[in-house]
C-alpha cells in the first residue's frame, strides 16, 4: 500500500514539536544553512570555475525541483534567468499568498514549522546574492504573519539573519508583508505591484519578467513557500540523492491538499508520481474513500483553476517502454500518477497540488456556479475580457443554478470562456475560463437538461420566479 513520504512535514505534526527556534535547532535546524555557506567552489571538467553560490544554484537545477505554487516550472531554471549583470540589487519574494481554492499546504508549514521556510529562504537568498527579501503572506493569516515575524526575530538573534551571517560577511534582511484579501496577489507580477504599494494589477510579459524587471524594476525571484523549503533539503541531501525521490522529471515530494467528498480530507506528503489519483482518494492511508453508498463523479485535480476530470475517463499518455521507445498507453483516471507530467498529459494540471472530489450527489451546474462566482469576485478588473466575461459567466450560471436556465446556456458559457482565454495580461483569464470550458464539455448533458427543465417549467407555472427572487444575483 502506498504511503506518505514526509520530508517537508517530517516534524510538523509530531507531538511536542513547536514553531520556536530552539525546537527547530534541536531537530537539526539551520545545519543546511551552515552546509550551504561552507560550500566549496567547484571546477568543471571544461576548466570553468563555479563559485560557492553558483554550485548551490546548479545543484537546485540538477535536483529537478519544480515550483510547487502552481505552474510547476523548474526552480533552478527560474533562478538562472535572473539578470545578474544589471548592477541593480536582486530581490527574492516568498509567495505565501496561498489562496487557490482547495489548497492548504503552505498554511501547515507557516504555522507549524516556520523556521524551515526561513532557512530555505536564507539559503536561496545567499545562493542568488540577495540582500533584501520579503515574505508576502495573505492578509487572512494574521497568526501566520506573527509566527513568521517571531521566527525572523529569533533567526536574527542567533545571527542566521541580519549582518555578517555566521561570520561569513554576508548580510541579509527578510521582512513579512501582509496582503489584504485579493487572490490576484498570488500571480507573481500582481504580487510585486502589491508589494510596491499599488493595486495588484499583473504586469504584461514581455517586458516585465520578474527575473529582469521585477520589484522596483530590479531582478526579482518569486518562489512558493513549499518550493523554498525544498531548497533546504536539496542542500542537505545533495541533488542526486534528492532526485531519487519521486519520478524522473517529477522529483522530490509534494504536499497534496485533499478536500470535498472524501472520508478523510487532509494534507498528505507524497513522492511525486509514486501515488495515483485513485490511491489518494480511496486508500486508507490517504482520503479513505467516498462517503458510504456514493460513487465518484468528478475530480478537480490541481486547484480550482485546473480542468475538471470526469469519473471513468481514460487518457492516452506517453510511456517509455522496456525498449526505450515512447509509446501511447491507455491510463484510466484513477491510475493517473499524481505528478506534473501525467496530469498535463490528461489535459489538465497538478497546479497547486489541491484535489477536490465530488461524488454522485453533486450537481455540476451548482459546483461550477460556485467556482465562477469566485473568479467573478477575484478578477482584478484590468483586462476587459476577464473583468466582464467572468461576471457574465457567473451571472449565467447563477440563473441556470436557480431555475432560470435556457438550453443554449452551454454554448453561451463556452463562447464567453473562449473569448477570455488568451486575451488577458495574466493567466487569471485561463483560470476563469478553464473550469467553465471543461465542465460544460464533460458534463454537457447535465447543463442542457437543467436548461431544458427550466424552460419547460417556465411555460408551466410561476414557481421559478419565486425561486430566483429568493436568491438574488450577488452581482
Amino acid at each position: 500500500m502506498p504511503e506518505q513520504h514526509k520530508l517537508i512535514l517530517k516534524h510538523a505534526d509530531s507531538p511536542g514539536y513547536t514553531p520556536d527556534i530552539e525546537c527547530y535547532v534541536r531537530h537539526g535546524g539551520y545545519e543546511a544553512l551552515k552546509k550551504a555557506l561552507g560550500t566549496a567552489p567547484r571546477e568543471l571538467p571544461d576548466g570553468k570555475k563555479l563559485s560557492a553560490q553558483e554550485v548551490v544554484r546548479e545543484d537546485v537545477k540538477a535536483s529537478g525541483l519544480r515550483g510547487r505554487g502552481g505552474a510547476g516550472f523548474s526552480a533552478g531554471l527560474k533562478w538562472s534567468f535572473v539578470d545578474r549583470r544589471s548592477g541593480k540589487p536582486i530581490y527574492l519574494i516568498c509567495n505565501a499568498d496561498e489562496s487557490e481554492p482547495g489548497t492548504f499546504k503552505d498554511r501547515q508549514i507557516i504555522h507549524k514549522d516556520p523556521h524551515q521556510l526561513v532557512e530555505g529562504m536564507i539559503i536561496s537568498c545567499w545562493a542568488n546574492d540577495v540582500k533584501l527579501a520579503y515574505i508576502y503572506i495573505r492578509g487572512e493569516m494574521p497568526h501566520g504573519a506573527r509566527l513568521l515575524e517571531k521566527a525572523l526575530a529569533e533567526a536574527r538573534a542567533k545571527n542566521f539573519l541580519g549582518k555578517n551571517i555566521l561570520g561569513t560577511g554576508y548580510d541579509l534582511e527578510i521582512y513579512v508583508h501582509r496582503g489584504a484579501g485579493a487572490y490576484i496577489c498570488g500571480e507573481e507580477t500582481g504580487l510585486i505591484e502589491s508589494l510596491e504599494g499599488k493595486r495588484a494589477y499583473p504586469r504584461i510579459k514581455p517586458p516585465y519578467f520578474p527575473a529582469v524587471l521585477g520589484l522596483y524594476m530590479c531582478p526579482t525571484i518569486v518562489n512558493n513557500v513549499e518550493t523554498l523549503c525544498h531548497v533546504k533539503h536539496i542542500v542537505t541531501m545533495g541533488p542526486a540523492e534528492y532526485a531519487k525521490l519521486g519520478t524522473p522529471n517529477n522529483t522530490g515530494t509534494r504536499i497534496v491538499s485533499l478536500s470535498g467528498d472524501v472520508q478523510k480530507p487532509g494534507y498528505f506528503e507524497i513522492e511525486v508520481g509514486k501515488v495515483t489519483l485513485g490511491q489518494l482518494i480511496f486508500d486508507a492511508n490517504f482520503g479513505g474513500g467516498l462517503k458510504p453508498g456514493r460513487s465518484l463523479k468528478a475530480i478537480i485535480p490541481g486547484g480550482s483553476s485546473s480542468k475538471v476530470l470526469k469519473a471513468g475517463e481514460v487518457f492516452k499518455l506517453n510511456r517509455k517502454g522496456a525498449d526505450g521507445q515512447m509509446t501511447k498507453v491507455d491510463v484510466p483516471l484513477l491510475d493517473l500518477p499524481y505528478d506534473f507530467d501525467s496530469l498535463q498529459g490528461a489535459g489538465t494540471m497538478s497546479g497547486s497540488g489541491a484535489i477536490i472530489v465530488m461524488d454522485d450527489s453533486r450537481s455540476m451546474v451548482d459546483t461550477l456556479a460556485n467556482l465562477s462566482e469566485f473568479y467573478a469576485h477575484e478578477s482584478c478588473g484590468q483586462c476587459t475580457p476577464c473583468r466582464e466575461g467572468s461576471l457574465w459567466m457567473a451571472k449565467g450560471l447563477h440563473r441556470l443554478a436557480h431555475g432560470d436556465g435556457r438550453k443554449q446556456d452551454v454554448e453561451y458559457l463556452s463562447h464567453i470562456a473562449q473569448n477570455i482565454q488568451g486575451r488577458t495580461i495574466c493567466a487569471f483569464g485561463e483560470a476563469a475560463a478553464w473550469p467553465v470550458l471543461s465542465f460544460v464539455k464533460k458534463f454537457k448533458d447535465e447543463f442542457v437538461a437543467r436548461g431544458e427543465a427550466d424552460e419547460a417549467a417556465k411555460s408551466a407555472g410561476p414557481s421559478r420566479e419565486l425561486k430566483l427572487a429568493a436568491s438574488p444575483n450577488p452581482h
Partner: protein
Amino acid sequence: MTFSVPSSLEAQLDELATHYPVKRSASLMFLHALQEHFGHITDEAIEWTARKLGLQPINVLELVTFYPMFRREKLGRTHVKVCRTLSCALAGSGELREHFCKKLGLDPHAHAPQTTPDGKFTVEFVECLADCGNAPVVLLNDDLLPKVSTAQADEIIAKGKGL
C-alpha cells in the same frame, strides 16, 4: 472625534516604513495597522497615510477600494467570515452563513458584509480561506475555526452578545 494616531503606533509605523527602499510599499501594512487600531479606515486615516508616505490620498484610497479586507464602515465587535468557496460550500457553508444571518436578524441573501444594528456582529461571505480540509471554516476575528457546526455558530452568537 479628532483623528489622532498614538505616538507608540506612529513610532511602530515609522520603523515599518524603513523595511522598504521605497516608502510607498508600506501602504498596505500602514492600512492594516490603522484598521486594527481604529476598527475601520476613515478619510483621516487615508490622508494621514498619504502624508506619512509622501503620496496623494487617491493613491491610498484606491488600495482601500481594491483590497477586500479594508473597510470604510465600522464593523461589529464579533466579525464572522464564512468561507463561500467550493470545498466549504460542499460541506454546507451556505447553510451555515444562512444560520448566522437568520439568528442575528440579517438578510440571508445579501452578499455584502452586514452589521447588526447594535454593532455587535458583522457577518459576511469570503472567498477561500485555505483550510479546505477542515470545511466548513469560519474566520472569527483573527481566529480560524475548523468544521464549524450550527451548534458552534449558536455558541459564537451567545458569546458575542455578551461582549
